[in-house]
């Protein structure tokens, strides 16, 4: 149950899989994402509500064939430039996209976790998302006649999460902002959890989510495995690293240098030092960024 990260990724994730590395700003499984890059996995359908810099890295490294998502950005900073480059210029490979709203994605995971083929929500009505996504349809309430949005269940082949702790039996415990991880894990065929530490007994913590070991396929101990995001109670979010990513992600050469450093680093290394210094000033000043939404 508790295996090294490299082995867990090799066992559970294969070329062509649909993979969700979930985390809502908090507890993002960054180290697992880097291991996927190192192992050179290809043709993945990457799924996540809020693909951020580790998804930018996976996309830039050419691991992804498709991205299913609702908000792809660098939270609090701006756009993801590797994502942009893949969508607009097919670099390093074309990237198919399927996009939803947050509520749509969240309910897709809920349906997936519930063994239902679809979910119902109030949403999408009147938006251009509908005509650009065949996975948004409508359903009529059999009691009121109201028309509502329907989205299909999302059942990844593999869901990867990072958590604070597991016990030796493989029960996984996370707390703080727990986001969509429970549903993403329960919706998946296979689950990989990286954790800060393994303990004998999971002392209860307010706000905790427990994933019982019977729904977890592998636990890998990776202290700091969520950095530069954070692990509530363990370490803080490294906001500077998110800001620094902008300059690296913006430039193919800078990114390539960063990638070279990552893939040449020893497995288990969690995050390379930025290969280029951040650009001076506010790099996004000239961009038509939405001012009002974060991740």
């Amino acid at each position, binding site marked *: 149950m508790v295996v090294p990260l490299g082995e867990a990724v090799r066992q559970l994730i294969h070329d062509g899989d649909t993979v969700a590395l979930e985390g809502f700003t908090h507890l993002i499984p960054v180290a697992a994402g880097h291991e996927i890059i190192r192992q050179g996995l290809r043709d993945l359908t990457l799924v996540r509500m809020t693909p951020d810099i580790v998804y930018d890295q996976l996309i830039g490294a050419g691991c992804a064939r498709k991205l299913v998502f609702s908000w792809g950005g660098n939270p609090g900073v701006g756009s993801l430039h590797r994502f942009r480059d893949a969508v607009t210029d097919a670099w390093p490979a074309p990237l198919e996209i399927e996009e939803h709203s947050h509520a749509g994605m969240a309910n897709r995971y809920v349906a997936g976790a519930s063994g239902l083929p679809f979910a119902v929500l109030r949403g999408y009505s*009147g938006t251009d998302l509908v005509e650009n996504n065949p996975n948004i349809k409508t359903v009529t309430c059999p009691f009121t006649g109201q028309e509502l949005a329907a989205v299909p269940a999302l059942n990844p082949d593999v869901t990867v999460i990072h958590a604070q702790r597991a016990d030796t039996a493989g029960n996984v415990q996370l707390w703080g902002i727990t986001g969509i991880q429970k549903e993403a894990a329960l919706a998946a065929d296979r689950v990989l959890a990286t954790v800060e530490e393994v303990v004998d007994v999971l002392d209860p913590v307010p706000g905790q989510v427990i994933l019982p070991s019977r729904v977890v396929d592998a636990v890998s101990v990776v202290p700091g495995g969520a950095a530069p995001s954070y692990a509530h109670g363990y370490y803080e979010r490294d906001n500077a690293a998110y800001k620094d990513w902008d300059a690296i992600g913006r430039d193919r050469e800078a990114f390539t240098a960063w990638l070279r450093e990552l893939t040449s680093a020893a497995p288990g290394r969690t995050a390379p030092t930025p290969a280029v210094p951040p650009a001076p000033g506010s790099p996004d000043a000239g961009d038509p960024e939405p001012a009002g939404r974060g991740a």
Partner: protein
Amino acid sequence: MTTVTWTSDEIMTVTAARSLRDGMACFVGIGLPSTAANVASRTHAPDLWMIYESGTLGASPDHLPLSIGDGILADTADTVVSVPEVFNYWLQAGRIDAGFLGAAQIDRYANINTTVIGDYDDPRVRLPGAGGAPEIAASCREVIVIMRHSRRAFVDKVDFVTSVGHGAGPGDRERLGLTGAGPVRVITDLGVLEPDPITRELTLVGVHPGVEVSAVREATGWDLRVSDDLVRTPAPTDTELSVVRSLTGAA
């Protein structure tokens, strides 16, 4: 000519903060909306109830978070719920009074684009996408938009409707089954726009100190109507400015 002693972000932030009433439940995004909500809660709206889409209900951070999921939000919240719960039990159920949205583009009916500039299948600029904005626009009792004024942003027709404002005009929200009132105000660095009560077309109802109406019309990509009751935004008070600056580190 007025001597401007504040920045355009500061006047936007202060004006947005004033739009929030005490006791409201407010869905807060990152950036100016978060600053504005935190200014409001530190001035005239101490009982403002801030919800971030990460599931933190009733957060009261002592500094501005960089992301909607910073630890300080969980630490200070009345409770933290899952993402499905915040969207289904809180937003969709109509429990949120006010939602803040930003936009890359907005049109004369306050429809919002945060998805692409250009064609969807061959975009000129790929933007982050929808996030929670479509549901915020649909289900909050009212929506307040904050964005910088420019012809590139204030367009006759958005390239992509990510979030519905007033559709193509009167009756569209009802026809689409959207339960909230939609955008009731757009706050920019130049002034304030509100939908006309009859036509739902965004109309200039206020200009900030030192701003001429002609400058606002010049920065708008359609023939902007101006309200007969145009007001000038009261200048930020010293208190407002000092709160804004203490939050943004510009003190």
